[in-house]
């Protein structure tokens, strides 16, 4: 049966799976996938995030990278800051799952992820899907 939700009803509980890590920098700046989730999540009952593949790098802590580049006389210090966005996700109540096998396959230490994220084996990550109404591959 299909039901129509009333105006103001919140959307379903969604798990957003991100596999692709690189989606532009100069052209994207703040307007990247995690920004979209942060911006839209109040419309939904719940949105959580699962990072897999190269996207796990968004949750890897590091101290040296500065998201800026100089082009001509312009210093563009507004490039995507994925770690900062993952921290924002955690702070705003998202569950952020990170695929452990992808973290280690890329040579990163699972103990060096952004605080508040949850590092899980791939199979265990998949077992969480039924907890959601929908799973989106972002």
């Amino acid at each position, binding site marked *: 049966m299909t039901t129509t939700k009333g105006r103001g009803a919140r959307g379903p509980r969604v798990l957003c799976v991100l596999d692709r890590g690189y*989606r532009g920098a*100069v*052209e994207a*700046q703040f*307007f990247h996938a995690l920004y979209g989730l942060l*911006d839209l999540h109040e419309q939904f009952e719940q949105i959580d995030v699962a990072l897999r593949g190269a996207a796990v790098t968004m949750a890897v802590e590091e101290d040296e990278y500065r998201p800026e580049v100089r*082009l*001509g*006389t312009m210093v563009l210090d507004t490039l995507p800051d994925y770690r900062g966005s993952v921290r924002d996700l955690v702070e705003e109540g998202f569950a952020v799952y990170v695929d452990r096998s992808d973290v280690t396959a890329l040579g990163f230490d699972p103990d060096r992820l952004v605080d508040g994220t949850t590092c899980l084996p791939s199979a265990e990550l998949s077992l969480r899907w039924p907890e959601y109404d929908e799973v989106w591959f972002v």
Partner: protein
Amino acid sequence: MAGTMERRMWDLLLILTTAPHSSDVVTSALRLSQAVLDRGGSVRVWACGYATMMTQDTFGDTKLPNTRDPEGYYPSPSAVVQRMITDGEGRFGWISCTACTEERGSTHHIPQVRHRSPLRLATTVTSAKQTLYLGGA
């Protein structure tokens, strides 16, 4: 008898067919261009496919407001390219493929962009000492 016209040689031609917002290639192309400019060289970008979207004047000078930082300044892709062309003082050029422009409907370029038919691609390649093809259309 008419004399022969001397063609300008560019140090580097980047044929950019990667769509913006799809990977790091557009940023890499701009960084590579800047590195060549910093060494006194000249660079021309031939934008194909959705890369022709980079220079649309419909962007305006800035991106849409960042709801999490409404006062922040975020230059649009066309503003970045425009600045590089201006700052390059003739050493940085941007060509938009007319066929891809028509095909993608990206027909409103900033005035600094040159429009070229794909029939002139080979001529453009021979006008550069080196060519890098950055694919992904």
